[in-house]
């Protein structure tokens, strides 16, 4: 019964072909350093799942943001767990994505024909850092407020257009409700869409081109 059902879908969707193309790829002898891309993808999935759950109770408004997080931590069953995973997963994701970049660099895996994989990877790394930067403000506590004040001020030190960048980031001259709202918007919509799209291209390139071998002495 189940087999017939699967065959019905397989015939129309080509599930077996997808499975073979995506998972049964031929790969050169590799080591544990080659798992960092999958680890990054896994962490992104976790961040997306826990992040969606957090929006159920979080309110991006200066008079409610802190209280709503207190509520998540103390008033909601397993709220501490969901937020804890999102909090620690964020740090871990920056770390893993960064080491993934180092591995690609030192193994020379960015070279022809994988330049585009590398370039989308650059966007992914920057977007991940952007997620960290925007997410840091959302708890709206003292640390979040001043970290963002400092962070946006650093952006303001860019020659000539610095003050303009600073104001665009903050949505005004000072950190305010507008800052919180736009950081929230960027955190849950803009950057996730960018990351999702880039992951799509990144993975397509990996599947299409295969992965590079560990470089030998002569390479």
């Amino acid at each position: 019964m189940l087999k017939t059902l699967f065959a019905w879908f397989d015939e129309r969707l080509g599930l077996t072909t997808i499975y073979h193309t995506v998972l049964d790829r031929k790969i050169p002898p590799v080591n544990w350093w080659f798992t960092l891309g999958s680890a990054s993808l896994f962490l992104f999935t976790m961040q997306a799942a826990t992040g969606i759950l957090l929006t159920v109770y979080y309110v991006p408004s200066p008079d409610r943001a802190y209280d709503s997080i207190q509520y998540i931590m103390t008033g909601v069953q397993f709220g501490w767990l969901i937020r804890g995973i999102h909090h620690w997963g964020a740090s871990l994701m920056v770390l893993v994505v960064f080491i993934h970049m180092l591995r690609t660099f030192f193994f020379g895996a960015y070279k022809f024909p994988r330049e585009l994989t590398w370039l989308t990877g650059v966007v992914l790394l920057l977007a991940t850092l952007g997620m960290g930067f925007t997410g840091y403000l959302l708890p709206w506590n003292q640390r979040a407020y001043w970290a963002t004040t400092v962070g946006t001020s650093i952006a303001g030190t860019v020659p000539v257009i610095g003050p303009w960048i600073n104001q665009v980031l903050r949505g005004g001259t000072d950190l305010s409700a507008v800052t919180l709202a736009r950081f929230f918007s960027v955190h849950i919509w803009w950057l996730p869409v960018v990351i999702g799209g880039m992951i799509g291209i990144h993975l397509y390139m990996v599947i299409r081109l295969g992965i590079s071998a560990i470089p030998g002495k002569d390479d």
Partner: protein
Amino acid sequence: MPDSHEVSRRDFATVVMAFVGALIGALVGLPAIGYLLSPALKVQKSEARVALGLLDSYPEGVPTLFSFTRTKINGWEKTVNSYGVFVLRKGNDVKVLSNICTHLSCRVSWQEAQQRYHCPCHDATYDINGGIIKGPQPRPMDEYPATVEDGSIFVTFTGG
């Protein structure tokens, strides 16, 4: 390979992956159910013991209004509601009536001259014990069970 007793590397990896995947899925998925449902299914206790002060501070035989506030917490939001009750003292006995008209929840006031409670909205009137004199109200005024302990009055408040 069902015929062979040896587990192939590929089958082993598949089983481990499936197991770890299910474990992680359950670790996040099951708490997520509680996370989504627990606040929705929480029933707030509305019953409370409210202290109305010393018995001796109330005049004999004259309904006296006592106002207090109750705080309701919904998630991260706090709402403070005001309530009023009429305290009628008869010796060491007290009768505590809600000042909410049973018709459409307007607030009634005590009219000493006519010895009656009067609701300004639709002219409902009650006697000193909360019984209906006349008007559109469906039932007498609501009474809260009151006790006197060590000279202080307490009521079991259920509204709000």
